[in-house]
Structure formats: structure tokens, C-alpha cells
């Protein structure tokens, strides 16, 4: 073997050993295994159950006792949309206040009275349904009979919305904690110092982090996607390749940000504080659990410039709407900008000793 060849072989061996080292640290640490696999699954089970699609439930409503009550009860009991109960005035008011019933109907000399809370959507809806049932029960004829088409298909449920959010959240956490915290610990324990006292190339060391991050994606994604598919029939409507590609861009972006967060500090507490500081606003605004469109229009440009929002937007578009590369180009560019910016800054700031 020539000298160049042997040097190249040695470099390859060194990258391979560094990658193996990172992988072993990952799978021999029960904690990281849980946060990577267990946590997203537990989250999707819990939230999937809490927000499962239910059969449209009948709205509970109260009928106040009185001379007319029996007639009202008879009419309302015919409706499948309402669940009437006979109550005294006090009972009815109490039930309405605590939300046990959505609307109260009573009789007065001038006719019937509906009591409801207009700030509660279900209360307003129940009032409309109740009025409709009463009017028909008293003999109103419909002008025409519309035909209903019922749409309850996978892709529009909460769990479909949630899964891409959890994938994005997972990629952010593993990037920040796995890389950021891992590096800070290596610096505190002087392992970094020990490593750079060898001829190890610093670029190889950083490269091993990137490679392992990319490799782990193929271990991280399938369990959650398969689980979501089996347990909740959540499907990827777009291309799997594109979904994995977008996840890869996201994973590397957060890896670069993790590198930046840990580039100087030798105090793991400090780094974990910084990671929390950076991730918390994204937990809240990037649309993991609910759509970021709920925030005021004024801050939407900021929210959409965040890397987690970009990742989740892209993944939702691929999973739910079957979007192609062209439709997710913008969020991909946002991620690439964050990723390269963080990486270049991290290299510049990185403290080896």
C-alpha cells in the first residue's frame, strides 16, 4: 500500500470508528431510546385517544317543568340530534352554567324561550338544532329536502394533523439534545480535549455527528410511521421519498443548530437552558399540537420563518395534501438557510479545548 492509500484507509477507519462510537452511545443509553421512540408513540397514543373521531353526539338540552313541558319533551325526543331532560328552573340554570346542557327551553306566556350561551359554539349550534326540531314538530314544512354527503375520511382527523407535528418535534429534540447536549458533555468531561490531542481530524469528528444524525433518521422514522398507520390508519398521501427527504433536511438543520448551541459552553446546564430557550417558542407556535394560524396575523411571518414551522408545514403538506417538491420549496429553503447559517457560525465559534 502506498502512503497516500494508507492515510486514506486510516481516515476511513477513523470516520467509521467515530460513527460507531456515536451509534453505540445512542443505543446503549436507555434514556435516548425512550425519547426517540417511546415518547412520540406514547404521545400519539394519548393524544389520539383524547382527540379520537367520535360519532356525532346528541346535544344535551334541558326542558323546564311546566304545563307545556310534556309536549316539548315529546317533540325533542324524536330528534336524533338532541338529548332532552326534564328539569326544574334552578336545575336547568345550574346545568347550563356548568355546561352539562347546551341550551334550556322553557315556556312563557308570550311563547317559548331558549336560554343559551352565545359565546359557546356548541350552545349556539344546539339552539339552532333545537329551534329546527321545535318548528318542525309544531308543523313547519321544509321548503326543500337537501341531500347530505357525509365526509369523514382519514387525512382530516386530528391524529392526521398530529403525526407530522410529532415527527417534526422529534427531529428537533434529537438534534438539539443528542448533538448539543452530547457535545457539551464531551467538553466538560475533557473528552474533546483528549480527542484533539490525537491526530484525529476535526472535520471527521463533526462529520461523524452529521452522518449519525442522518443514519438515525432511518431508525427513528419507520416505527412512528408504521405505528400511526397500524393504530390510526394515518397514511402518507404524497411520496415517501419526499417525506424522508424533507425529514433529512430538517434533521440536519436541527443538528447544525445543536452544534451551534453547544459550540462554546462547557457547562451542560447552560447548554440545556439554551436548548429550552430556543425550543420552547417553537413548541408553542410552530403548529405541533394545533395550527399556528391561531396566532395573530401580525406575527405569522415570524412563525413561518422558524425552522420547526417550516419542517412541519412541509411534512403536513406531503402527508396530508400529497404535495410535491414545488409546493414545499419555500419551507425547505427556510430550513436550509437555518441549517447552513448555524453550521457556518458553529464552525467559526466552536471551542475545542
Amino acid at each position, binding site marked *: 500500500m502506498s502512503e497516500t492509500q494508507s492515510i486514506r484507509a486510516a481516515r476511513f477507519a477513523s470516520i467509521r*470508528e467515530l460513527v460507531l462510537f456515536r451509534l453505540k452511545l445512542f443505543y446503549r443509553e436507555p434514556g435516548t431510546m425512550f425519547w426517540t421512540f417511546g415518547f412520540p408513540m406514547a404521545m400519539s397514543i394519548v393524544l389520539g385517544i383524547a382527540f379520537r373521531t367520535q360519532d356525532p353526539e346528541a346535544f344535551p338540552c334541558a326542558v323546564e317543568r311546566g304545563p307545556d313541558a310534556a309536549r316539548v319533551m315529546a317533540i325533542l325526543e324524536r330528534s336524533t340530534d338532541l338529548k332532552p331532560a326534564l328539569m326544574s328552573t334552578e336545575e336547568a340554570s345550574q346545568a347550563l352554567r356548568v355546561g352539562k346542557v347546551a341550551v334550556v327551553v322553557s315556556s312563557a306566556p308570550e311563547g317559548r324561550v331558549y336560554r343559551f350561551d352565545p359565546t359557546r359554539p356548541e350552545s349556539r349550534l344546539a339552539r339552532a338544532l333545537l329551534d329546527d326540531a321545535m318548528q318542525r314538530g309544531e308543523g313547519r314544512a321544509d321548503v326543500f329536502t337537501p341531500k347530505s354527503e357525509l365526509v369523514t375520511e382519514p387525512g382530516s382527523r386530528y391524529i392526521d394533523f398530529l403525526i407530522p407535528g410529532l415527527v417534526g418535534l422529534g427531529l428537533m429534540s434529537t438534534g438539539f439534545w443528542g448533538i448539543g447536549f452530547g457535545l457539551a458533555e464531551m467538553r466538560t468531561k475533557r473528552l474533546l480535549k483528549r480527542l484533539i*490531542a490525537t491526530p484525529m481530524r476535526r472535520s471527521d469528528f463533526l462529520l461523524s455527528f452529521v452522518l449519525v444524525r442522518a443514519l438515525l433518521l432511518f431508525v427513528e422514522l419507520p416505527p412512528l410511521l408504521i405505528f400511526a398507520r397500524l393504530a390510526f390508519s394515518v397514511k402518507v398521501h404524497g411520496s415517501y421519498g419526499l417525506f424522508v427527504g424533507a425529514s433529512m433536511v430538517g434533521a440536519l438543520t436541527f443538528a447544525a443548530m445543536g452544534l451551534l448551541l453547544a459550540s462554546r459552553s462547557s457547562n451542560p446546564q447552560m447548554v440545556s437552558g439554551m436548548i429550552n430557550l430556543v425550543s420552547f417558542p417553537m413548541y408553542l407556535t410552530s403548529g405541533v399540537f394545533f395550527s399556528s394560524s391561531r396566532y395573530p396575523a401580525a406575527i405569522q411571518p415570524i412563525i413561518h420563518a422558524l425552522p420547526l414551522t417550516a419542517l412541519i408545514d412541509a411534512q403536513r403538506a406531503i402527508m396530508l395534501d400529497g404535495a410535491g417538491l414545488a409546493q414545499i420549496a419555500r419551507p425547505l429553503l427556510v430550513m436550509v438557510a437555518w441549517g447552513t447559517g448555524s453550521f457556518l457560525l458553529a464552525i467559526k465559534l466552536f471551542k475545542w479545548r
Partner: protein
Amino acid sequence: MSEPDAVSCRGLVKEYDEVVAVDGLDLTVRRGECFGLLGPNGAGKTTTVEILEGLLEPTSGEVLVLGKTWERDEHWLRERISLSLQQTYLPDKLTVRETIRLFRSFFARGRDVEDTIRMVALEEKAKAKYETLSGGQRQRLAVACALVSDPDLLFLDEPTTGLDPQSRRMLWEVIVAYKRGGGSVVLTTHYMDEAERLCDRVGVMDHGKLIALGTPEELIRSLGGQEIVELSLAEAEHAPDLAALGSLPAVHSAKMQAGRLVLAVEELHVALPGVLAALAAAGLVLENLSTHRATLEDVFVNLTGRQLRE
């Protein structure tokens, strides 16, 4: 041209904000030599070694390692020197073999991983994770990570601090074996027995300066006596006459140290009768007497007036 020295530095200075950690150090370590840097905590040993290892930049001064400078030939030097830091935590979850293999992979040339495990007598622990190793085993693994590159020069910063006597002896054997193979060693320690056992030459450091340099024998001989006699005296109105005691036959020096009379003497059987007679004549009552062969510890106390581990 002869082989360059393992280490040579001139006028080495390292200043931190307020403190001068190394204050104008000149040092030469020859090839094949085991050189010990002795001194109490805070004497500047670690700072000196880390400068020689190319991990710290000196404020001023010139450093040549294997005839090269860190500025110009860092990669070349990294391939040829190895070290163990004063404290290193290796990755908890890696086994002994995996850790050594990782370090081996960084070097273009080096020793076989299994041979290295054998050198540090960790065969039985080859599959054990770092987190399960004892202090002595961890330290041997740290040294193995240095030896696996088959270095020309090995730096060991307090390799046996905090270890039990048996672990220390095992580590000494590893170092002796490495030296026998032609390697050069620079080690720091505050154990005098370690330096006497391992080092061809020692330099004693205090407050960032080298205050003595020589073979252990030379330094001990500089005390003037091979034997040390320590005497405790009962309370008396007058102190012993040190000058008179010092001029007795075979007595080289007499000093009071920490309330005790300490004499450096040549031949115990010649010196003792005279000393005892002189004390009795002065009306001083002896409470305790002990003797030991002079060690580097005595050299340090003699040079600084302080105990090493104060």
C-alpha cells in the same frame, strides 16, 4: 546529526490574568529518558505539560518537541506523541476494546489493539464498559489509549493520583515496559516514591519555577546525608543548639522542622551516639526517635521548608 531531544524548552512563561503559572522554565528531556516533574499542587506542572503537549499556548518562550515546533508540525507531532490528561472521562458506554480501537483509528501507524490491552493487563476487562471499571483500571485504559499509537514520547499527567498502592504498582510496570521498548516519558507527580522508582531525572517545581534538577540520587545526595534522623524532644526552657549538633561527626545538617529536630547524617552508627550524648549533656529529654533513608520528599522539604502535600 544526532537525534533531537525529546523535549527542549527555553524561557517558558505562561501568564493567566493575574497569575504567573510558569515563570521562565528551561528544560531538556533526552531520548529514552523518563523525566519526572515534581511539585505540590499549583506548582505549574500541568500547565507546563499541556504547553509541551501543544494543548496550551505559552505566553512566551520556545518549545521544541522531538525537534519540531507545534506551530509548524502539529500533525506530525500528534502522530508521534501520546498523552494522558490529569483527568479524562472516557465514554461511559464504550468497552475497553472499543475505546482503544477508537483511539487506534486516529493514528496512521500504531500498535495492535489486542497487544495494547495485554500491555495494560486489561484482557479480562476487554468487554467491560468504562463505567464499570475501577479507578486503577480506568487509568490503565487511559494509558492504553496513549500507548496504542506506539508513540515516541509519552506525557502522563499525574497518572497514579488517587489510586491504591497495587494499582499504582501495576501502572508503574506498564510505564517501565514502555520505556524498556525505547520510549521517552515525561510524567508529573506529587508522589516522591513514584519519581524515585520511575524517573531517570527529576525536576522539582515550585511557584512556576524549577528549583532543583538531577537524578533522584543526585538530589538526595545534595542533602549531604543518606539517612534522616527525626527526634521529638520533651518541653524544655532552651532549644537545642543546632550549630553544635550540625558539627558532630557524620552529621551533615541539623534543622527544626514542624517542632521536631531533623538531622541529615552520613552513617547512623557513627552519628547517633554523639547526638544522644550531646542532647543528654544539654539536659534535653528524648521522647521519640525515628530514622529513614533520605527520599525526594526530604529534598523537597529541604528546598522549600514545606511538606509536599500541604
